[in-house]
């Protein structure tokens, strides 16, 4: 039996074989990023949109293209629907994609999504023809509202961005998965491989990871670890875990035991 690579999955008609999406933020150099993209096996990676500076931005897009990875612009830094709409439109023009990872945060301390602005931005972007993948709270109701607004996926957080705290409310993630008819992508909070596996075991379709890989002591090795973890978690989800029991259930036969 082959090690399952995770069967292909589809977001808005685009078929992907890798269930790991990489955020490019935090990589110390483009060379590190190149190694991470390759080692992770990802097919989709996020970028942010920022003002052009005279210093230039190097060849970020070149590195991503060379790695054979599609680019997913985000609206990081936006606090209102109006800002997010402008940044998404700039990204569409600059990068030639109508896919957008929608981020509308309430403040810079928590970087938690602002539900009201997020929903408004999602509706406007969908109406403008975007394929919208919103970064959202681990709130099953908000996730459902985003799906009803026409989003192509929902991306609940495990914990605040960059915190590495893992999945703080796995029950909520499971409830989001249970009701969603669009892919659920765990986004933010992952710190290490076991947490990526947990996201997949909870039934998420994919995982987005940036800091946990790019800021690891050895980013390339962590990219490999995350790739394996996502595969393992997906396989475990499909294999079906045993029920949890209060007391032990002997795994060796009870009959024929030696007694003194």
């Amino acid at each position, binding site marked *: 039996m082959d090690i399952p690579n995770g069967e292909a999955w589809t977001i808005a008609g685009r078929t992907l074989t890798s269930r790991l999406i990489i*955020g*490019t*933020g*935090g*990589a110390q150099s483009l060379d590190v*990023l190149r190694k991470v993209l390759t080692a992770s096996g990802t097919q989709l990676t*996020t*970028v*942010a*949109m*920022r*003002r*052009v*500076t*005279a210093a*230039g*931005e190097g060849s*970020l*897009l070149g590195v991503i293209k060379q790695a054979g990875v599609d*680019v*997913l*612009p*985000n609206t*990081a830094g936006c606090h209102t629907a109006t800002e997010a709409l*402008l*940044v998404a*439109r*700039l*990204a*569409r*023009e*600059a*990068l030639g994609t109508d896919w957008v*990872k929608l*981020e509308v945060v309430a403040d810079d301390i928590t970087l938690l999504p602002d539900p009201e602005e997020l929903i408004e931005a999602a509706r406007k972007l969908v109406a403008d023809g975007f394929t919208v993948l919103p970064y959202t709270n681990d709130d099953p109701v908000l996730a459902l509202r985003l799906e009803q607004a026409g989003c192509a996926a929902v991306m609940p957080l495990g914990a605040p961005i960059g915190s590495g705290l893992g999945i703080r409310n796995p029950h909520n993630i499971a409830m989001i998965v249970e009701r969603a008819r669009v892919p659920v992508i765990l986004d933010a909070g992952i710190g290490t491989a076991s947490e990526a596996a947990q996201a997949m075991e909870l039934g998420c379709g994919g995982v*987005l990871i*940036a800091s946990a890989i790019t800021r690891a002591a050895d980013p390339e090795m962590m990219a490999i670890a995350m790739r394996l973890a996502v595969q393992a978690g997906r396989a475990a989800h499909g294999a079906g875990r045993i029920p949890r029991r209060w007391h032990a259930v002997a795994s060796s036969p009870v009959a024929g035991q030696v007694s003194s």
Partner: protein
Amino acid sequence: MNVTLNGEPRDVPPGTTLAQLVGMLTDQPTGVAAALNGEVLPRRAWAGTPVRDRDQVEVVTAVQGG
């Protein structure tokens, strides 16, 4: 006349086009987008779009993030 280019004031001659303003910042042939007073204009329209006094121009590109 004065325009604001990526948040910085710039004194430019009348008739300056959006293409010329973008050219002051970057010569990247792709991967760049520009907005004039909050409206995104496609690259093909830049050369034919003169800017006016007190216009706000944003020129962006992709950076590592997310």
